[in-house]
């Protein structure tokens, strides 16, 4: 691999050090002086950036993991195999980030295990807690062969591989539950969440948009790793993912449109409020524009065009989650929430650590497998692994 290109990353290393220093200070503040000192949260606005971004967006951005695992193992589209490992790793890091963010956000993080023995199946949060725990375990197992290979541990490798299909099915089911349950969390606030976003279909919207953003993330990461590590990009594969993304996005857009009209929330779009602007941005940037781009074959099959569409889908997705969790709730709360710098520092630190871990994995593990020229051999091996 081309480690000679690494010096290019030193600027980012410097940025990372600054972010981590700020994050370290914020962590100390959070755990010695409490949430009030480290965050802009209040009785009127009890959930902020750590839930809105770290948890809601983190889980969504990890959705590439279950989407691609289903494509490769359940639908047997083996040619997508070469990009599966980095995607599973991203999903695992995303979920680990969510779990760590929860440790910051929970008032008493040392009780994070309470849902294991103190049950309340009527609570969506109970479902969320179990999904995070179980899916994190599944992702760790799904990724473990890469680590076992590295150390030549044949026995555990064999055991995990024999469970592959069970793990993948469990992963897809848990993801379906978890992605949708994050939307279900907000079903309980019909009088608090702005009508442009409150819908009985929130769990469906969260699930479908997660699939779209999962595909967008695979495209996004493949481009970044290709650029950073001088790898050849799997353009035909990504263009196909782009096509699938367009289908999901069109479906999602139609559902959102139908929902706003049928609930009579369309009249809010005529009012000149910040919510209207944010809703418009979300739909335009995240759905309409990328959809138009993806329908044009020349854009879809062009590396920059596809990358731009993926970035737009991700942006729209982030806007949607932040609108549901923060801006859509501000009107009712009667306050304006804006995160303190210490909150932002913790979030950036977690993202930075995830990036650093990914870079380490690229260096020390066989993440990308053989280069595309070996794809045939790879394919044979993959098929025999699944079938035998």
């Amino acid at each position: 691999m081309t480690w000679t290109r690494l010096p290019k990353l030193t600027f980012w290393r410097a940025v990372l050090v600054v972010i981590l220093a700020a994050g370290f200070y914020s962590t100390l503040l959070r755990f010695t002086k409490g949430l009030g000192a480290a965050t802009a949260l209040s009785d009127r606005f009890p959930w902020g950036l750590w839930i809105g971004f770290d948890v809601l967006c983190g889980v969504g951005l990890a959705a590439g993991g279950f989407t691609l695992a289903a494509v490769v193992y359940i639908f047997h589209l083996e040619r997508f195999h070469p990009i599966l490992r980095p995607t599973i790793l991203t999903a695992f890091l995303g979920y680990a980030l969510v779990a760590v963010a929860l440790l910051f956000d929970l008032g008493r993080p040392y009780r994070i295990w309470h849902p294991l023995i103190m049950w309340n199946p009527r609570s969506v949060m109970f479902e969320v807690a179990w999904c995070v725990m179980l899916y994190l375990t599944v992702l760790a197992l799904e990724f473990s062969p890469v680590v076992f290979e590295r150390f030549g541990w044949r026995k555990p490798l064999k055991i995990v591989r024999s469970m592959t299909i069970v793990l993948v099915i469990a992963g897809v089911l848990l993801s379906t539950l978890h992605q949708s349950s994050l939307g279900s969390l907000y079903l309980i606030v019909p009088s608090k969440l702005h009508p442009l976003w409150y819908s009985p279909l929130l769990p469906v919207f969260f699930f479908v948009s997660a699939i779209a953003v999962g595909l967008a993330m695979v495209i996004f990461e493949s481009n970044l790793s290709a650029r950073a590590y001088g790898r050849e990009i799997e353009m035909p594969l990504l263009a196909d993912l782009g096509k699938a993304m367009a289908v999901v996005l069109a479906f999602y857009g139609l559902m959102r449109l139908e929902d706003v009209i049928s609930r009579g929330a369309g009249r809010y779009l005529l009012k000149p409020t910040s919510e209207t602007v944010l809703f418009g941005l979300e739909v335009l940037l995240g759905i309409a524009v990328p959809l138009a781009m993806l329908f044009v074959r020349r854009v879809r099959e062009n590396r920059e065009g596809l990358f731009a569409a993926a970035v737009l889908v991700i942006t729209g997705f982030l806007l949607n989650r932040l609108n549901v969790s923060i801006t859509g709730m501000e009107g009712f709360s009667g306050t304006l929430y804006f995160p303190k710098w210490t909150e932002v520092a913790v979030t950036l630190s977690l993202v930075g650590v995830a990036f650093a871990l990914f870079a380490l994995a690229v260096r020390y593990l066989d993440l990308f497998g053989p280069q595309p020229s070996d794809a045939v051999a790879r394919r044979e091996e993959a098929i025999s692994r699944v079938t035998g």
Partner: protein
Amino acid sequence: MSKAILVDTTRCIGCGACVSACQEANGLPENDDTQLTAQTLNVVETHGEVFVRRFCMHCLDPTCASVCPVGAFRKTASGPVVYDADRCMGCRYCMMACPFSIPRYEWNAVLPKVSKCTMCAPRQAKGQQPACTEACPVEASVFGERDELIAEARRRIRENPSGYMGHIYGEDEAGGTSVLYLSAVPFESLGLPVDVPHDPLPMYTYRVLSKIPSLVSLGSVLLGGIWWITNRRNEVARAEGTGGEESGGDDQ
């Protein structure tokens, strides 16, 4: 039968006796908070000419109890909604979800708790009434059986229809609450949320949660089935020597 509190805002003189009694009964410091805080479980707000007590509504089917992942909230048979701090992990979903925005948090504590009125559950267990209703000098707040208090509220409205709004706030809000309000002016102008649905909010999430078992069983059969079919196709294709990597599944 369960206990309730009827607050008649047309009688309240804003003396604050209920606030002091609440602080004393709950061992909270005296303060001048004008809104609910972690240290203030009961306040008297002023809206124009009218004084309104605000405290936990003690819903019949409490949203907080349904959303808490560890079951820290519980509706007791006698009426109060109580909180067990030893279970709480501090996710604050109760604060998000409460349609009346009642629960408060100890934001500056390293080991924080949620706080809210307990309807003096400990006093009730000893056969006493809540400190606030006992302290009220003008019977603006009275304690009793919920059914009887609703009958009493209806009687007051019937006998003085021009002096009251024709609605008992809390009779149906959020599926009904154990705290009931009477008012001469629209409830909206008293700062009480009027958009609260009249059916119990826990239903909104239960409708979805109850589908999980069938989703999981159907999902695993479906996914397993697709895997088996595409796998079989590949096997057949390989046996026929055509190398059918892409023959399975729907490639868009």
